[in-house]
């Protein structure tokens, strides 16, 4: 492949002439859209740590799949969805006591990762693979994998399209939603399953440890800009796509791995947007606390 030129379109066209890189862009786009959509609800519902745990469980799943000789994709999906079912089945009362909960989460995460090391050690000749399972890779995504990612992604998006409205209601005020006859518990379980499938999708390009680059940061950035659901969801998807595309673009020309670029670009966008919105708020409101709503005063008088 020829070196980097400032004609970015020509660079992109050249990348896409290589099937390996074209597949990476296809898979990356599917993952970016799905992760940004589901992640938007995850941030709204405050379930980031559930998302993180589900992604970590993907690591032993993928390692076991390699050891047993079944596909990586199967390993990621079955482990993440199984973990989502387990979390969904835990009694709601068990989620109270914060002290014990954090001890349990810590134990489960560490044990899942330890299982991953066991499977890796059982399968010899895995050396370079551990780093890419944990920190992501964009190489070696086959056309069949892209198709699988697209089908699962479509199913996830279809589910979100069906449950989106009641889910939004139930996420913002579960008690009132339940009083209005919304099946809150059913929505909880289906959202966890959707989150598990999404964490599995995202892990395949970000690695098990860095899913937050696509699952958490783009939606969080979008929610800094606007609180209105539809624009903020659309913005989240746009930020996700920009993150994946620019990370892939830079990673092709650099020696550093995709995981570093994904997290750095996503985190950089989050910080820049955070600073800009805060400055805008201070300018608008004469230094009032950020908790004050940002709607401009109708009569235009500065407070």
């Amino acid at each position, binding site marked *: 492949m020829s070196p980097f030129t400032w004609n970015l379109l020509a660079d992109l066209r050249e990348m896409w002439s290589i099937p390996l890189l074209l597949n990476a862009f296809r898979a990356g786009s599917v993952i970016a859209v799905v992760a940004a959509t589901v992640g938007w609800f995850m941030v709204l519902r405050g379930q*980031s740590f559930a998302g993180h745990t589900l992604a970590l469980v993907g690591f032993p799943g993928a390692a076991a799949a390699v050891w047993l000789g079944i596909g990586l994709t199967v390993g990621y999906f079955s482990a993440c969805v199984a973990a989502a079912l387990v979390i969904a089945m835990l009694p709601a009362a068990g989620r109270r006591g914060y002290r014990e909960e954090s001890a*349990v989460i810590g*134990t489960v995460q560490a044990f899942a990762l330890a299982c991953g090391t066991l499977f890796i050690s059982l399968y010899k000749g895995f050396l370079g693979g551990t780093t890419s399972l944990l920190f992501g890779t964009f190489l070696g995504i086959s056309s069949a994998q892209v198709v699988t990612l697209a089908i699962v992604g479509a199913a996830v998006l279809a589910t979100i399209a069906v449950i989106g409205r009641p889910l939004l209601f139930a996420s913002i005020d579960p008690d009132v939603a339940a009083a209005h006859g919304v099946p809150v518990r059913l929505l909880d379980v289906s959202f966890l399953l959707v989150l598990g499938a999404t964490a599995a999708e995202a892990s395949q390009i970000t690695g098990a440890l860095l899913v937050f680059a696509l699952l958490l940061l783009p939606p969080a950035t979008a929610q800094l800009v606007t609180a209105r659901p539809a624009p903020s969801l659309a913005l989240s998807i746009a930020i996700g796509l920009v993150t994946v595309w620019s990370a892939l673009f830079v990673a092709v020309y650099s020696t550093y791995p995709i995981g570093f670029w994904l997290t*750095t670009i996503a985190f950089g966008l989050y910080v820049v947007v955070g600073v800009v919105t805060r400055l805008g708020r201070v300018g608008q409101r004469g230094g009032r606390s950020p908790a004050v709503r940002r709607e401009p005063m109708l009569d235009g008088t500065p407070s």
Partner: protein
Amino acid sequence: MTSAVVTLTASPALGDIFAHPFMRYAFLAGTAVALAAGLVGYFLVLRAQIFTADALSHVAFTGALAALAAGFDLRIGLFAVTVLVALGMGALGRRARPDDVVIGGVFAWILGLGVFFLTLYTTHRSSGANGQAGVTVLFGSIFGLSGGDAVLTTVVAAVVCLAVVTIARPLLFASLDEAVATTHGVRVRLLGYGFLVLVALTTAESTQVVGALLILGLLAAPAGAAMRLTARPLRALWISAGIAVASVWIGLAISYAVPRVPPSFGILAVATLAYLGSVAVSGRRRWAVA
């Protein structure tokens, strides 16, 4: 797959486990680190600061690889960066309580930076660079400790243990009821900082034993089990340390008997089983503190 199963059964005799120097070093350093992790972990769970330890272990990973990439000794990066970040987190304190979105975003970026340093190290330091350095820091390499490493780890761990035991009573007081402790003249803020430094030292040194990703389990599981088994704080403190040490001993023995089982997995598996056992024993009894 069949070959993998067959090799599981190949085991040397357990009797001569201490005949190998690397096993003696592993037991020495492992015992010391487990003792420190058990003691510190109890207070971490009591103070609901497990996620602080999680953050520090991520920092330890990036610090170690940054030191390797810059050509320093790995331990300088580990200890310096982890302790500095711990003090920084203490300074931010409770006033600036970050939400889980910020924590998650920062975690992910710190790990991403770690991968950056890992690549820097493996591609630019061709002489003596170890391609497995990243995996080693993440999952530990207790069987790779030299005699000097083991002694140093033991000394640091002993200092941590002594410090925890010395401040145990006031720290317990401050953790359970901060307001009352303050009125009784306990220097709550200073204790908080001191404890964070101890957590940082424990995380940094256990990175060599069980690894940056798995230390969380050794901090959380024995402490969680101890709190289920007894309501009396000082007794729970020692039970927690005991479970941690037993996990390391049994885990190392399993790994010695079945070489394909990584020592980190053995240690974590025993610690997790201990927690499950404590849940079974205590039944659905209420989570008891003090």
